[in-house]
């Protein structure tokens, strides 16, 4: 397993033009450590950005305020020291940077892109071309699962569990969910901003939840099969409108409003049952329950718990055209999305 990971990282560094034995060893150590990182018993989820040109990379990723915390010889052990010193700081909008110079590795923290609709670090790095500035992002995307995202190439998913290798990458499943949530927003620029918002908040909210189940309907059709046993909002909570107001006003009131509704969605995702949203980025209902019979479910789903069985029912509704998408994040952090991509 370690040899396999080392080979994959070595190939990735070669493709990026960053080949270096110490970096290779350091990234392996970081990936393993990040899979289940704890300080004083508290789980931490730091994101780590490794690059060769910090002054370009930070503004390019929409980041700011890089603060140097330390540095050392260009050796794998320096990366471990970096994680120990910086991980407690890398929360609440801060991420870790590691800059390679000829003989050294310097490290510290920087502010992630500010604002709930800004393009997140992963999306920025995935969008980079192979000839652009080389950057690598490491992030724990699920329990014991770390994603290594290089610029201009496919991410590497590292499972340190018995999870099947063919499972969907959590980030990919969340990206599909985010794209469904904005499909029916007419204005293309607002659609793009809402897509960025959905990606950012789903990444944050789903990580905080102990597991979640989402159903995505068309704007005009919340199926009663989902809402019959649930709490339906008196009027849909239109997150798209709040994003538009935030862009238009740029006031702290508009930002506060958007963040408050994001937190409300977070609370709904923490609740038991299904949260129902639509493809115009509106929340319709939460705490919804569906009855699952064995006929609705595949063999694998019949063996699962209540949430997985409910997900099976939602998938069947997607296949019948009653829903546009279904998404599950299990308590161990693994994600699956089922739906029609436009």
């Amino acid at each position: 397993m370690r040899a396999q990971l080392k080979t994959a990282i070595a190939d990735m560094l070669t493709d990026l033009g960053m080949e270096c034995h110490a970096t290779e060893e350091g990234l392996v150590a970081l990936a393993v450590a990040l899979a289940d990182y704890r300080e004083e018993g508290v789980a931490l989820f730091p994101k780590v950005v490794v690059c060769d040109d910090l002054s370009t990379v930070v503004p390019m990723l929409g980041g700011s305020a890089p603060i140097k915390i330390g540095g050392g010889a260009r050796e794998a052990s320096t990366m471990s020291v970096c994680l120990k010193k910086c991980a407690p700081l890398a929360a609440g909008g801060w991420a870790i940077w590691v800059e390679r110079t000829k003989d050294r590795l310097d490290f510290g923290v920087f502010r992630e892109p500010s604002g709930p609709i800004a393009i997140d670090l992963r999306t920025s790095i995935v969008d980079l071309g192979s000839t652009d500035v080389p950057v690598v992002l490491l992030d724990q995307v699920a329990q014991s699962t770390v994603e290594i995202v290089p610029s201009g190439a496919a991410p590497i998913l590292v499972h340190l569990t018995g999870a099947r290798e063919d499972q969907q990458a959590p980030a990919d499943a969340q990206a599909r969910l985010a794209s469904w949530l904005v499909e029916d927003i007419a204005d293309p620029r607002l659609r793009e901003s809402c897509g960025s918002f959905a990606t950012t908040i789903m990444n944050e909210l789903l990580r905080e939840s102990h597991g979640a189940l989402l159903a995505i309907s068309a704007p005009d059709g919340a199926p009663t099969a989902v809402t019959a046993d649930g709490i339906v909002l008196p009027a849909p909570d239109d997150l798209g409108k709040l994003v538009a107001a935030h862009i238009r006003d740029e006031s702290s009131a508009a930002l506060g409003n958007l963040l408050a509704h994001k937190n409300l969605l977070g609370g709904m995702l923490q609740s038991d049952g299904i949260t129902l949203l639509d493809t115009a980025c509106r929340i319709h209902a939460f705490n919804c329950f569906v009855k699952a019979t064995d006929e609705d479910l595949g063999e694998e789903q019949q063996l699962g718990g209540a949430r997985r069985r409910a997900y099976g029912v939602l998938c069947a509704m997607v296949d019948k055209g009653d829903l546009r998408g279904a998404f599950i994040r299990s308590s161990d952090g693994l994600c699956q999305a089922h739906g029609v991509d436009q």
Partner: protein
Amino acid sequence: MTGTSAVLWKPRDVVSVPASAITPAEIATVAKQLSKRELEQIIKTYDAGLYEMGATFVWTRTMAGLRRQLSSLGIEFVAEMLDRPDIRPGADIHEVLTDFEAVRLAEELGMFGGSHALRLRHSLEIVAHFADPPDDVDEEGMTHEEAVGTLRTCVQTVLGHESLNVAVEFADFRKRLETEVLEFQSAEIENLANSAYFFQRSVCRILMAGVKTAQGAQLENLLANSNAIVPALWPGLMDPDRYLVGRAYSEVHADGQSKAATGLRSALLKVRGFDYVPEDLRSRSFLEAAARVLEAHFGWDNFASEPSPVRALESLGSSIPSPAFARCMTAVLAVKLGNRYGQSWDAQTPADKILDGVTQDRWKYFFDRCLPTDDVVLEKLTDIDIARRWTDFLGSLDQVRDLTPDDRRSRELLEATKAGNATQVSARAKGLLRSIRQD
């Protein structure tokens, strides 16, 4: 740069007012935008010697017409062309655009030429001064010549046109940037890189305004053109305009506009321009405060309204973020230099405090990377009395005493300043202004 500069769009012709037309009645009859009733009232007011009242009405109608026409371009475009990030989408152009800026933008878009823009700015100063005169105003008030001059200029540039369309050549060029992709390293782009600075700056602003608002194929064309044009212009761009590109990237990134961000990132990587991407919103607070100062300075009753926004700018602290430095210097220097009628005395102390906090390094940066294209400050320095104020306060400033800018033209201007030679300062400023528009 060669002497044969490219001209991308030319100012349209102004309305011809015959030289023989010397009375208000003769001039006013050419004003097609005014109703018969308005014409009669203006003529009566002028004939009665109520020049302040008549000229103020003429000016107000002129600016309303100009703003109405500029609003057809879209407020986001107007904000970008004026480098005013504080103007929000959806803002009312009549509320946020000062008279000075309306004239400046119309000139840049080719709605009239430089000479007429200069006359309009003088008219603005005259009207604003006499609309709310200071205590020491001369007893004569506005003269017949000043009032008639204002009327003539307003008719020639705005009121004489049936409808004041944005210059056709400018509109065509803007449309081309949105609908066609110019070839990288083509003769056309080379031509642009050899054009007057004013055109280069305007093209950058058109591109950035479009990138922030366009969608679909239009956005793709603008991004492709940004990737071809920005690298060609970058070596000659002064820092305020480089920050404009960096700020556009920062804004589309913060707004989650992936396509626009990817396109601009590619252009910035080509020029290694990420030093010009503002770090955070702190610079924005300074930009907004500087905009308020300039708004007061170019507004009516400026002597009374300047102190408050200058104090607000000063209260933000002496460490001005780099992306906002040029704009803050323009604002503070505008207050220090005043206008042809004097300065706002109460605004001088906070303005001095701000300038005291500008280090020698930053003054050098100002002279090398900001002043050569700062047409607000340069325009003021063309007036000999204002140039004298400049030599008085700057010549005695410790931070510039041993300063030697790298930019030859700025260096010559500073040398004249230190020598207390206001005539030379004025001549150098005129030279710099010419080079912005005609190189």
